[in-house]
C-alpha cells in the first residue's frame, strides 16, 4: 500500500519571532502524539514556519486508518454479576450502551478493584477525517507567549489567521482535508510572499509537499528556518568579503533575523567615517539594538559598514539600502548627541540623581543600593584572601550605578555598566575602577567573561548578593519552574562563578547573611534567610556539577560538609573526584554513613579518654588524632588530595572499631565516650567532605 502525505498551513499576520521556535516544536510533538493516539503509526511529522506561516508536513501516512479496538470499563464486578454468575441489569445495560454482546464482557483490574470491560471495535475511518480532527486539536492546544483577538473578537490566537491550507493525498494532493480552524474553512491553496508574489497558489493536484515547497520558494517564501539561516549567512559573508571585512559573530541576532522574514535578503550599507569616533560598544549597540543590523569588522575593529536583513530577495531600486543607510545615520547621529550630552559632566557628578531612581518598590532607590553594595564589597574584600585596594573598591561602588541616569543608558538599557565604564575611563578614573564599572554585569550566569580585575569581581558579587538578599528579604516572587522574573538564578550562578574563578575566597554564606541583615536591619524573617542560603547552595551545587564537572554525589559530599568558600569548594570537589574511585573510599563511605547515623542520634558527648580501653578504641583514637594533624596541615597547604588520603587511613581502624566494639552499650559513660570519639571522627571528615554521600561500589 502506498504511503500518503498531509500538509497543513496557517497563513497569519506577522507572528512574533520569539514565539516561532517553540510553536514549531509544539506542532511537531502535538501531531506525533495525536497521530499515534489515532493509530496512524509510522507517520513522519515535520514542522516549518515563516514570519507569516505555521506549517506541518506529515509523510509516511497509511492511506486508511487501521481498525482499532478500544477498551471501555464499566461497573464493578460485584455489581455486574449475581452470585450464580449471571449478568445483572447493570451489566446488560453497560454492554448495550457500548454496543457489544453481554457475554463478551471481560473482567479487568480497575483502580478501585475489579470491573467489567467491553472491547469495542473501532472501524478505520477515512484518514482526511482523522487529520481534520487531529489538526483541530493540535492547533487549539498551541500555547503562545501572548495571544490576541481581532475583528469581531470571536477567536483568540497569536495573530489573525487569513488562510488555512489542508491537503491530503498519495503522491499527489487529491483531497482537501475538511477542517475549520479559527473560523476559517481549509482551502486547497495559499498565497505567496506579500510583496514579491501575493497571488493565490492552487495546490490541489500538485505533487506533494516537495511541490508546495518549490512553489512557495518561487513565490518568495523559504519555509525552512535552517535554510533561511544558511542563505542569510552565505549572503552576509559574500557582502563582507567584497569590502575586505568579516561579519562580527552574533548568533543571537542571527537566530532572531531568521524568524523575522519569509525570505532573507541581505544588503550592505555604509556609515559615515565620523561615527567611528563613537565608542565601539555604542556603535555596535546602536546598529544591533535599533536596526537589528549585523556589524562588519576589519582587523578586529568596527568597519564603516553594516548588513541589514530585509524580507525579500532583492532591492530593485536600491531604495532599501538607501533607506537603511539613512536610518542608521539618523540613529548614530542620535547616539552621538547623547554621547556629547553625557560627556558635558563627569560620571561622578551623576551619582546624586540615583536618590531619585527606584531600584525596587520595597527596596528603595539606587542610591541606597549603592551604599549597601559599598559596605558589602568592603566585607568581601576583607575576607577574600586577595589584595584589593579599598579606596579603588569604594570608588568603583560609588560610580557603578551612575550611568543609569545618563542619556545613553536611557536609550540603550543593555549598555548599562559598559557606558559607565567608558565614561569613567574618559574621566581618567583608575583602570581598576573603570573596568570594575564596565564589567559589573558580567558574567550573565555561565555566559561571558569574568570581570577583568578583583575590584570588578568584588563589586559584581556584592551587587548581586545585595539584590538576592533584598528580594528574598522582601518576600518577592522567587524563582520557580520556568519563572524567574528577576533572573535570580543567573545572578546567584554568577556569584558562584566569580568567586570560584576570580578567585575570591570569601565565605558566601557569611556574606549572604550580612547582605540579608543589611536589608532587614537585622530583623529579617529567618525562614527567608534560610531560603536565600538554600537557593545559593543549590546554585553552588549547579556550578560544581556543570563547570567544575564533578559527579552530583561528589558535589553533595562537598556541600554537605560545608560550603561557601568557592575556590576551596571547587578544590575539595576536584580532589574528592580524583581519589574517590579508589577502593578504600568505597568502604569508607559505608563506615562514615554509620558514623553519621550514630553521632546524629547522640547529644553532645563528654569525652573521657581514660574510659576507652579496648584495643580497637585506642587504635581509632590514635588514628583520629593523627588524621586531625595531617588534615590540618593539608588544608593549610590546600592539599585536599593529601587530606583525603589521610582520612582514608581511618578506614581500617573504623572497620575494626565497628566489628569489635559495641557502641550502644549499657554503661552510659562508656557509650557517651564512644559516641564522642565518633563525633571527633565525623568532625575531621567534615573538614573535607561528607563521604557518606558517596555511593559504595
Amino acid at each position, binding site marked *: 500500500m502506498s504511503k500518503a502525505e498531509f500538509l497543513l498551513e496557517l497563513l497569519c499576520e506577522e507572528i512574533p519571532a520569539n514565539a516561532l521556535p517553540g510553536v514549531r516544536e509544539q506542532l511537531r510533538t502535538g501531531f506525533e502524539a495525536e497521530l499515534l493516539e489515532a493509530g496512524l503509526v509510522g507517520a513522519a511529522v515535520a514542522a516549518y514556519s515563516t514570519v507569516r506561516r505555521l506549517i506541518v508536513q506529515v509523510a509516511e501516512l497509511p492511506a486508511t486508518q487501521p481498525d482499532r479496538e478500544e477498551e471501555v470499563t464499566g461497573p464493578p464486578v460485584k455489581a455486574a454479576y449475581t452470585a450464580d454468575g449471571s449478568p445483572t441489569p447493570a451489566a446488560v445495560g453497560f454492554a448495550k450502551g457500548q454496543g457489544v454482546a453481554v457475554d463478551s464482557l471481560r473482567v479487568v483490574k480497575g483502580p478501585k478493584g475489579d470491573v467489567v470491560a467491553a472491547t469495542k471495535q473501532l472501524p478505520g475511518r477515512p484518514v482526511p477525517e482523522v487529520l481534520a480532527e487531529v489538526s483541530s486539536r493540535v492547533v487549539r492546544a498551541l500555547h503562545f507567549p501572548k495571544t490576541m*483577538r481581532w475583528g469581531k473578537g470571536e477567536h483568540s490566537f497569536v495573530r489573525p489567521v487569513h488562510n488555512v491550507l489542508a491537503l491530503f493525498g498519495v503522491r499527489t494532493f487529491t483531497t482537501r482535508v475538511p477542517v475549520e480552524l479559527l473560523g476559517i474553512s481549509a482551502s486547497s491553496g495559499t498565497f505567496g510572499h506579500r*510583496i514579491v508574489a501575493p497571488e493565490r497558489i492552487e495546490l490541489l493536484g500538485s505533487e506533494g509537499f516537495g511541490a508546495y515547497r518549490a512553489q512557495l520558494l518561487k513565490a518568495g517564501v523559504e519555509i525552512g528556518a535552517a535554510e533561511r539561516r544558511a542563505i542569510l549567512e552565505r549572503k552576509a559573508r559574500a557582502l563582507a568579503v567584497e569590502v575586505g571585512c568579516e561579519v562580527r559573530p552574533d548568533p543571537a541576532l542571527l537566530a532572531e533575523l531568521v524568524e523575522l522574514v519569509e525570505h532573507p535578503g541581505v544588503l550592505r550599507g555604509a556609515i559615515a567615517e565620523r561615527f567611528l569616533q563613537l565608542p565601539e560598544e555604542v556603535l555596535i549597540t546602536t546598529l544591533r539594538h535599533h536596526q537589528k543590523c549585523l556589524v562588519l569588522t576589519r582587523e578586529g575593529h568596527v568597519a564603516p559598514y553594516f548588513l541589514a536583513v530585509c524580507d525579500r530577495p532583492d532591492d530593485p531600486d536600491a531604495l532599501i539600502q538607501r*533607506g537603511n543607510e539613512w536610518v542608521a545615520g539618523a540613529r548614530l547621529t*542620535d547616539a552621538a548627541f547623547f554621547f556629547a550630552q553625557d560627556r558635558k559632566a563627569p560620571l561622578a557628578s551623576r551619582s546624586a540623581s540615583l536618590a531619585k531612581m527606584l531600584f525596587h518598590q520595597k527596596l528603595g532607590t539606587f542610591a541606597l543600593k549603592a551604599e549597601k553594595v559599598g559596605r558589602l564589597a568592603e566585607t568581601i574584600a576583607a575576607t577574600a584572601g586577595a589584595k584589593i585596594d579599598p579606596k579603588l573598591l569604594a570608588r568603583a561602588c560609588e560610580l557603578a550605578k551612575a550611568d543609569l541616569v545618563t542619556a545613553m543608558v536611557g536609550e540603550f538599557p543593555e549598555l548599562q555598566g559598559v557606558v559607565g565604564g567608558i565614561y569613567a575611563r574618559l574621566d581618567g578614573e583608575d583602570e581598576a575602577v573603570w573596568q570594575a564599572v564596565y564589567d559589573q554585569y558580567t558574567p550573565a550566569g555561565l555566559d561571558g567573561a569574568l570581570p577583568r580585575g578583583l575590584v570588578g569581581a568584588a563589586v559584581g558579587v556584592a551587587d548581586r548578593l545585595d539584590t538576592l538578599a533584598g528580594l528574598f528579604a522582601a518576600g518577592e516572587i522567587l524563582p520557580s519552574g520556568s519563572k524567574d522574573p528577576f533572573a535570580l538564578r543567573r545572578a546567584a550562578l554568577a556569584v558562584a562563578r566569580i568567586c570560584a574563578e576570580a578567585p575570591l575566597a570569601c565565605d558566601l554564606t557569611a556574606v549572604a547573611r550580612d547582605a540579608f541583615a543589611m536589608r532587614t536591619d537585622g530583623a529579617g524573617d529567618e525562614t527567608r534567610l534560610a531560603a536565600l542560603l538554600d537557593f545559593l547552595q543549590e546554585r553552588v551545587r549547579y556550578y560544581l556539577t556543570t563547570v567544575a564537572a564533578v559527579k552530583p554525589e561528589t558535589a553533595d559530599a562537598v556541600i554537605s560538609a560545608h560550603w561557601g568558600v568557592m575556590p576551596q569548594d571547587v578544590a575539595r570537589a576536584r580532589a574528592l573526584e580524583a581519589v574517590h574511585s579508589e577502593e578504600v573510599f568505597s568502604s569508607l563511605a559505608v563506615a562514615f554513613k554509620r558514623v553519621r547515623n550514630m553521632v546524629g542520634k547522640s547529644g553532645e558527648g563528654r569525652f573521657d579518654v581514660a574510659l576507652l580501653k579496648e584495643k580497637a578504641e585506642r587504635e581509632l583514637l590514635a588514628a583520629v588524632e593523627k588524621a586531625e594533624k595531617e588534615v590540618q596541615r593539608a588544608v593549610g597547604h590546600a592539599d585536599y588530595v593529601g587530606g583525603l588520603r589521610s582520612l582514608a587511613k581511618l578506614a581500617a581502624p573504623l572497620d575494626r572499631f565497628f566489628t569489635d566494639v559495641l557502641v550502644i552499650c549499657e554503661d552510659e559513660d562508656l557509650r557517651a565516650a564512644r559516641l564522642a570519639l565518633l563525633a571527633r571522627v565525623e568532625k575531621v571528615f567534615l573538614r573535607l567532605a561528607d563521604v557518606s554521600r558517596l555511593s559504595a561500589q
Partner: protein
Amino acid sequence: MDLQELILSLSRFWSEHGCVVQQPYDIEVGAGTMHPETFLRVLGPEPYRVAYVQPSRRPADARFGENPFRFGKHLQMQVILKPSPADVQELYLASLAALGIDPSVHDVRFEEDNWESPTLGAWGVGWQVLLDGMEITQFTYFQQAGGIDLKPISAELTYGLERIAMFLQRKDNGFEMRWGGGLDYGKIRHQDEVELSRYAFDVADVTMLRRHFEDWEREAGRCLEQDEPLVIPGLEAALKMSHLFNLMDARGAVAVTERVALIGRVRKIAVRCAKAYLEQRERLGFPLGLGNGNSKLNGKHNGGSKTAGKGAER
C-alpha cells in the same frame, strides 16, 4: 513630499476608506490614543472609523531644540478602524502607496511591538511597521481600554508624521524637514521646542501643578458623580491630570515611590469614564448600531500596492 502634503494625503486616503476625519483634541495629550475619538469610541459594540492628526506632548522627551530627532511635541496621525477589517494590513499598505511609497520596491516589515498605557488602563497587541528599517507606524489591535475587554476589536494605526516626513525627504535633522508653504519645520516650531523645554525642565511651578492635579481630580469626581455622569468633562479632567503629571515628572518632582500612585489616580478616573461612557451609550440604544452587517461605515477601498507610482518619493 512635505509634511502638510503627507497629512493631506493620509487624511484623504482614510476619508475615502470610510473614516470620519476628526480634528486634534483641544487639550494637551501625550498621544492620539487619549483623544476621546479613540479612547471612548473603541468601547462597546458600535462600529466606527476615524482619522485625525494629534499633536502629542511628551515634556520629558523635549531637548531644547538641540537634538535633531527629539521633540517635546510631535504630530501623530491616528486612525481607528472598528472592528478591525480582515484586510487591515493591505489597507495600511495602500495608505503608504498614497504617500508615494510603493511597497513593491521597498521592504515593509511588521515586527512585534505591543502597547500598554497604564494611565488609560489600556493595552493592545501589534507591531511597529518598519519601512526600509525605519519605524514609521505603530499598529495595534486594542484588547482592553479603561480596564474593559473590548469586543469588537479596533485596529489603531499611529503614523509618526515627523519621522515619515524626514525619511521621505531624507533629512537627518527634523528641523530642516519641509513643512509646506515654503517653510521648514524649524522655522515654524524650533522656538516652541526651546521654550517648552525650558518650561518643562526649569520653570514650571511644581506646587501649582500639584494643586491643579488635585483640583482636576476632584472636578473629575464631581463630573462622574452626577445623576447622569458627564463623561466628556470627566475624561477631559483626566487628560489634564495626565499632562500635569507629565510636567511634574519632567520637572523631576515625582518621587520614585509616588509615581505609580499618581498614575493610578489618573487611571481610576479613566476607568470610571470608560464605564460611564458604555452605560451612556447603552442608555442611548447604541446610536451607531451594533455592527451587524453594517456596511455604511465600510467605505470603498481601492488603490492596492501595485497602483502607486514607482519610487514617487524621489
